[in-house]
């Protein structure tokens, strides 16, 4: 089949969605199809630019190329998934979140602060409600994303999980004396919450953070807090690490901490499971909760320093229990049939 993957990109920014799109293209090619990406640039501010970009996507014609039919379009991101096609399948990574659950989020909310914000929010919601159902089938990244789509747009969909990049290269090492928290550093991933938790732990727990800050200010804020709380010998900032180093750090950690705010999906949970490590997450973390079974494959804490500290202390003191939870997490991953072969089969059926 000739397949186009329609997605939106912000020039000069490469994140999880871009990697997923590339992996999907490679998986389709491996299954014997001709697959290409169509990446439409997207700028979400000022709000009036959003309807412009929605219209631009509606104006594109991906039905055929040089007289040859394009058999399928797979739409991933807003507003690219609005592109019309008679054989479109949507695999929704996320809707435009600040028009939905992040509308009044104190840090992330942006439309809410603009005069035309409410009108644009309504335009986005209406387009999603009316145009997403044009697709032949609607899959999402996770149960979390499906839940939002149903709650806000009244549209049913099926979650379709995908494996992290190079899933087969993760391995289990021996548990070391540190918790591992790999993630971009920003307020939504909540590195700051973990730092506050360390301060109230009974045990002298250590945490190694890896990943790039979205902007230098957020990193500086974290570093300052560590200094103020006198935790410098308990915290390590590794910055950007190679994929190999990252797998090493997973493999040899005691456990993985991943307490973001309402994550869509979160490869980190899956990578921890592939490395046979328990995951500490929070009750409001979204995606990770689809995988972490409290007290079986990790611990689900409340999003407070005290509750998180309790979970960290528990794993720090009972290493055998931590190891058993890690093994259970790995077994659970295998049971879930998370594979590109499965993704390709679903998206093309």
């Amino acid at each position, binding site marked *: 089949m000739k397949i186009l993957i329609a997605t939106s990109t912000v020039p000069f920014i490469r994140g999880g969605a871009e990697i997923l799109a590339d992996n999907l293209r490679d998986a389709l090619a491996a299954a014997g199809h001709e697959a*290409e990406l169509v990446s439409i*640039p997207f*700028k979400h501010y000022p709000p009036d630019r959003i309807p412009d970009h929605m*219209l631009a996507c509606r104006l*594109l014609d991906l039905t055929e190329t*040089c007289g040859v039919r394009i058999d399928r379009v797979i739409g991933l991101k807003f507003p690219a998934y609005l592109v019309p096609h008679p054989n479109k399948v949507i695999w929704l990574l996320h809707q435009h979140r600040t028009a939905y659950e992040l509308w009044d989020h104190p840090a992330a909310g942006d439309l809410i602060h603009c005069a035309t914000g409410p009108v644009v929010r309504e335009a986005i919601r209406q387009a999603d409600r009316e145009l997403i159902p044009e697709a032949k089938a609607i899959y999402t990244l996770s149960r979390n994303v499906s839940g939002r789509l149903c709650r806000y747009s009244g549209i049913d969909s099926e979650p379709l999980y995908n494996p992290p990049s190079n899933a087969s290269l993760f391995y289990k090492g021996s548990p070391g004396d540190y918790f591992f928290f790999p993630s971009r550093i920003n307020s939504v991933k909540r590195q700051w919450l973990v730092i506050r938790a360390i301060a109230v732990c009974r045990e002298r727990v250590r945490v190694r953070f890896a990943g790039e800050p979205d902007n230098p200010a957020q990193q500086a804020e974290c570093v300052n807090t560590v200094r103020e709380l006198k935790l410098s010998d308990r915290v390590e900032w590794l910055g950007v690490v190679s994929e190999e180093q990252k797998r090493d750090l997973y493999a040899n950690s005691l456990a993985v901490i991943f307490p973001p705010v309402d994550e869509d999906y979160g490869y980190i949970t899956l990578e921890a499971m592939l490395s046979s490590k328990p995951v500490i997450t929070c009750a409001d973390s979204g995606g990770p909760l689809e995988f972490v079974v409290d007290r079986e494959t990790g611990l689900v804490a409340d999003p407070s320093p005290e509750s998180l500290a309790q979970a960290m202390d528990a794993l720090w003191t009972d290493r055998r229990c931590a190891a058993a939870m890690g093994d259970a997490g790995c077994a659970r991953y295998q049971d879930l049939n998370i594979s590109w072969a499965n993704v390709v089969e679903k998206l093309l059926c």
Partner: protein
Amino acid sequence: MAQSRGLRILIATVRVPFVNGGAELHAEGLRRALADAGHQAEIVAMPFKWYPPERILDQMLACRLLDLSETVGVPVDRLIALKFPAYLIPHPRKVIWVLHQHRQAYDLWRNPLDDLSSYAHGADVRTAIHRADTELIPQARHVFANSQNVARRLKTYCGVDAAPLYHPPPDAGRFYTRPAEDFLYFPSRINPLKRQELVLEALPQTRLPVRVCFSGPADGSVFERKCTELASQSGFANRVQSLGAVSDEEKRDLYARSLGVLFPPVDEDYGYVTLEAMLAHKPVITCRDSGGPLEFVAHRETGLVAEPKPEALAAAMDELWEDRERAAQWGAAGRQRYDDLRISWSYVTERLLQ
């Protein structure tokens, strides 16, 4: 002027899904050259479908609706736009390097190979394209063209001045030469505008047993079938070899071992084939109406310029076939000419960012 991480530059172009041609290589070559010069450069490729004609207007509008002025609060320092309709994307610091306009609305209007004029609304769409080009191209800070040929069309049809700016073919440094063997080489996408058909019609009219080797993927299967039929009908199947898509290594090897290169397209904008032949020390046979190649091929010095007719092309093919020594001399002269022209990416980036 250059900051520590260079400029943030977007290259705006157009991509026809599942077709990989010179334009894609061009955008990628430019991206790499800008990165080599210390800039951050990315390609924005808009999908494009030109039929039915109304769709062209939709896609022109889509391009006008995009906002590439900045990303996440950081300005995009320069937009370098290459193809219609992507060069219509607005930007306060835009430079247009026109690869070509929408040729069916210009030089290919009413050409038998064209389809725009055959539609009911074709004329209206053509007018809209002319207006958009005439009014919006001059919004750019600077306008360059891929070749003299493209600059001339832009001036003739839209009254817009553009400076020709040549660039090297991909992997220019990896071409080499070998002693000539018994075949003329025609590398190109199989497409009516490249006129493989004309070469097949010329073959039966040669005096000598000239052999031709074609390579390149087919843009549409209909024309490919026609070429295959023609090759077998004329009973010259043993003198024609069609390799389909070949790797870059194979292509360079075929150039190196050929006696000469055939490249007789219809009013080509630029044409890497000419330059690649020159890099491989081979003479080029082209046609009087081939456009771009004529900026490089000096008749009876670095190749032959024939009338676009089977008989004339056949005579040119015979001439190279017969006098191998002269063919080799013209090939060497072509290489010399390439070197004299100083076609390089570093010069291109310098001009585009001036």
